[in-house]
């Protein structure tokens, strides 16, 4: 059977892509961010996942407002990265696992989640950068992938309560798959940041700390927040933390924090990172 070995939750700021492309990992501005990934690499060296399920949000590369799904699940053999408009270098294609995808899709729909099934899907920086950060030295991403895109663009967004339930169902779906696969769940986005409006540059360190704390042992605590609460407390783009919550909810065992990092600022964002190990 497939086994979820843990979750990696991380920010996905586009500027990271530029820093990687320019080799700025040791630059004083970037060093506290990139050094934070050492603990992830240590964990991966022994954890060795076969598949990454990536819970992220599309930023207007794959989806436009003409048809915007709440939850979109990939079912392709390959996912391509593409030009997002601001000159970020395009990363090599990602392998999918259609059989796993369809199993997950069947399970989610049986559990009354109204997903959009995507047999073609391009993936943006929110999907590609975390995978690049996990395996910086690999030319191509070494694990199979399953993209799960959550709407954080156009309100109404799925509530934290719904995301938590969705994450639980996603975990059940993956763990009922019959192949022996080690699966890591990624949750990308956040933490607190706001790009737009007169409140641009808003960051809330205390709220981020609370989220990172609750996510380890008591993730249901975050389901009491409304989306408006999250906008107020974490910023308009800080709502991306619902991707962390979804990923965390997929872990059903005893969860152990293996590693974390928190650094302000990366670009306009409070960057957070956690490795949560899932013990049966």
């Amino acid at each position, binding site marked *: 059977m497939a086994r979820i070995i843990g979750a990696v939750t991380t920010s996905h700021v586009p*500027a990271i892509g530029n820093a990687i492309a320019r080799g700025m990992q040791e630059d004083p501005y970037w060093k506290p961010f990139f050094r934070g990934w050492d603990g992830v690499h240590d964990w991966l060296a022994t954890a060795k996942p076969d598949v990454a399920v990536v819970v992220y949000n599309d930023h*207007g590369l794959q989806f436009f407002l003409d048809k915007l799904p709440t939850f979109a699940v990939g079912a392709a053999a390959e996912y391509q990265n*593409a030009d997002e408009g601001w000159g970020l270098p395009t990363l090599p294609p990602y392998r999918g696992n259609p059989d796993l995808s369809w199993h997950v899709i069947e399970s989610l729909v049986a559990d009354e989640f109204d997903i959009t099934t995507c047999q073609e899907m391009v993936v943006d920086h929110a999907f590609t950068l975390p995978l690049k950060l996990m395996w910086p030295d690999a030319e191509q991403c070494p694990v199979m992938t399953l993209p799960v895109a959550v709407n954080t663009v*156009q309100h109404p967004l799925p509530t934290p309560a719904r995301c938590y339930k969705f994450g639980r169902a996603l975990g059940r779906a993956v763990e009922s798959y019959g192949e022996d696969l080690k699966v890591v769940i990624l949750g990308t986005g956040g933490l607190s940041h706001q790009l737009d*409006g007169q409140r*641009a*540059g808003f960051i809330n360190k205390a709220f981020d700390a609370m989220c990172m704390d609750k996510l380890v042992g008591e993730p249901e605590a975050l389901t009491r927040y409304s989306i*408006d609460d999250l906008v107020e407390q974490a910023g*308009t783009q800080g709502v991306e933390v619902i991707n962390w919550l979804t990923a965390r909810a997929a872990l059903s065992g005893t969860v152990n924090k293996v590693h974390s990092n928190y650094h302000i600022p990366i670009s306009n964002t409070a960057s957070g990172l956690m490795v949560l190990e899932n013990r049966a």
Partner: protein
Amino acid sequence: MASRPRYAHRNIPGTTIFDGVQAQKGYALNKMCYSFNSAENRAAFLADEEAYCRKFGLSEVQRKAIAARDVLGLIAEGGNVYYLAKFAGIFNLNVQDLGALQTGMSVEAFRQKLVEAAR
């Protein structure tokens, strides 16, 4: 209107929640910005900004805000920052530049403000 309470979002100072009201208002504007995923379209925009805006059916207020690179104006007119970032990218403006423009600060002061958020 009795339907509004359920529909309305919280009033958060300096913040526009991109909901159905904004999504309708900004549809053409965001669709234009979405087209900037393509290098060919970015070039077409640069070749004739006004014509490109008209092709997508932007309102006069939106066209003026585009011409003036008026980010707050574009947001008021329904622009969503995920799409506007692609517009800004054409001019090599990053999200810190956008932040400075929107808060009326220098880019340096805006960056400093972010650093201070770490305290």
